[in-house]
């Protein structure tokens, strides 16, 4: 559906500097319809972009080992190249924030995937994932990263390709967190402006579309 597509596209494209300063209202204020401003934080101009980079940050949901594991894993899945990677984008902090607000089923599913990674690591290398040598981490991920032919991920904790399923759900979280960050937007070429009209569409000669 186009409407849904546009929404999804909008989540990654478009965008810029807020057009007005924050209105000084406390973030996270309880919204009673009879008393509150009846505006979302975004509509009030609240800018939460730097919240996760605050000094003294502590996880809301993860324990220290889970947090450290996620940092190591995210750095392997989206490493720094000529552009910053997932570690610099603090994807662990964003995932922690979202998970803390999600339902127990979603929390459990994420932790199960993370634990699966550690379990496989201990089975093969006798150590948790974050303590492995980089090349062993890479070898382990490689065995999980590609779907084995003839098997599919069903979301159930069974079946021959369960490892790939756990990998994919961790990767989706990490990629979602990375590409929705300011670093991620820039990775996709975003130049900081919100609008780039007009929409030119196709200007190729007939029968010469590429």
């Amino acid at each position: 559906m186009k409407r849904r597509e546009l929404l999804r596209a909008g989540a990654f494209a478009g965008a810029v500097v807020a057009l007005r300063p924050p209105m000084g209202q406390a973030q996270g204020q309880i919204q009673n319809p009879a008393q509150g401003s009846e505006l979302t934080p975004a509509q009030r101009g609240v800018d939460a972009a730097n919240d996760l980079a605050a000094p003294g940050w502590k996880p809301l949901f993860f324990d220290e080992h889970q947090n450290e594991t996620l940092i190591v894993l995210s750095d392997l899945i989206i490493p720094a190249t000529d552009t910053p990677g997932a570690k610099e984008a603090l994807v662990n902090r964003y995932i922690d924030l979202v998970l803390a607000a999600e339902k127990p089923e979603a929390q459990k599913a994420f932790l199960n995937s993370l634990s699966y990674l550690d379990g496989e690591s201990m089975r093969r290398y006798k150590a948790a994932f974050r303590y492995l040598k980089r090349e062993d981490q890479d070898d382990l991920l490689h065995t999980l990263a590609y779907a084995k032919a003839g098997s599919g991920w069903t979301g159930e904790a069974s079946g021959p390709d369960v490892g790939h399923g756990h990998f994919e759900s961790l990767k989706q979280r990490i990629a979602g967190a990375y590409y929705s960050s300011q670093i991620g937007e820039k990775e996709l070429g975003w130049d900081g402006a919100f609008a780039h009209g007009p929409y030119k569409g196709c200007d190729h000669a007939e029968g010469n579309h590429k």
Partner: protein
Amino acid sequence: MSGLFRLEDPLAQTYDVIVVGSGATGGWAAKQMAEAGLKVALLEAGRAVSPKEFTEHMPSYKLKYRDHSPEIARTRPVQKQCYACMEYNYEWFVNDLENPYSTPQGKPFTWQRLRILGGRSLVWGRQSYRMSDNDLKAASRDGYGDDWPISYADLAPYYDLVEKYVGITGAAEGNEMLPDGQFLPPMKMSCGEILMRDRVKAKFGRTVTIGRAAVLTQNHNGRLGCHYCGPCERGCSTFSYFSSPFTTVKDAAASGNCTLITNAVASHVDMDNAANKARGVTYVDRLTRQVKEVRGKSVILCAQAMESTRILLNSSTREYPNGLANSSGALGHYLMDHVVGGGAYGKLPDMKTTASANEPQRPNGIYVPRFRNTPTSGKHSRFIRGYGFQGGAEMDFNFGAEGYGTTFKNAVKEGVYQISLGGFGESLARWDNYVEIDKDLKDAWGIPALRISMTHGDNEAALMEDAAATAAEMLEATGAKDIHLQANVEMPGMAIHELGTARMGTDPKKSVVNPFNQTHDVKNVFVMDGASFVSSACQNPTLSMMAITVRACANLIDRFRKNDV
């Protein structure tokens, strides 16, 4: 906004017209009646809205949850099912805890709505299509249901009027199922869409056209052309898409004849039983819960199809024990919502452009008008009526790329050219799809709430099954690979095109309103929103709803001039 309106006690006078609801239809009713010199009270259940709360240019990384807030579900578990209910704007949508409704076991219905000045016109999908006599007189052609009592010729002048004011971008096609209109220049198609247009026409003879949308492609009526930032549903600082607060409601205010009463949760129509006429509307102040009555010589309900019907059902009197203007018993029945869930998507690997976060975002897609059961196609063996497709083809980032590390990071940027078509099918008008008052359930203002009972039937399922197959064959003809079919029937309400429940007709025994949206039973009560639809067709209905409102208003203005209200 409110500063533009009259400031005296709004309840001290008797208005010529009370309009309930300030959305796409209510805005038009207020504008037309007020500009004709009549005194109008416009009731809106929600608060006023300001351009200061628009967020269309705010990048998602500034949001606490980057537009993936799990918190919305606490107060808006139903509303979050709407594509447009986002971390940016969820306060525009109703709080589900305050606005309950019930459904029978096994018959889920998602009712997605806003209570704020402008209603859903703030976040609508903007697609704007005319109906034709193939829709309005469908019963005569295939024997199912009832014809509308009006024809295309009755509506055409009002389509013209509405389109010229609203500003509809589109391309004329001369298609028998989709009458052309008063178009602003069409938006451009992408390469993939042009390929689809040409190859589908060559292979199947079907029309693929650029979407017709209520978005300005040039400056128009004091509003600026679209700047292609993308997310219209967060508001538009240039007012380039049509929403009532900044167009029709603004005009109504400028006339000096319209009093806007916000935070007025309409409860019921008050009757002068001796005269068999409405004398006003009772509402509950949204914030204080004070019960108030506004008096008027006529009442126009534009509250949204099911809300208008709810008001009538809650207005029972001794004379009308089953709901006001319900001597037919049809009030509440024939609820419709387009069926969605059938279509296909795939990739166009031959396209070699690159994705870019800086690309202009076209707030519009492509459209395939109905090609089943048309005068030229003949009758289909498995279903009646038909469906249209919305879709598109564009380069996007390849977030689904496999692997990890540098390989993955590069593959995302290389992108993938995606192509898709999603069907919107006609929802047949059926007596057993209906709303009624749930006697055990009240909203936060003490007003009895609705019980909604609706399912899509076999014909709707057959439409979506066919839509999956025809979408796939059109993608294949375009050259798409990795094509996935979807033949689902999504739950009713998902199209957000609720229609019917106070249907139009000439027979007072079978319908609620006459061809000018006047209730058969009570001469000065009108239902001018989507409730009056006799059939749903498969086109997005808002444009037709607005044209029907304006036509009905012209008739009512005439009645006022003849002193016949």
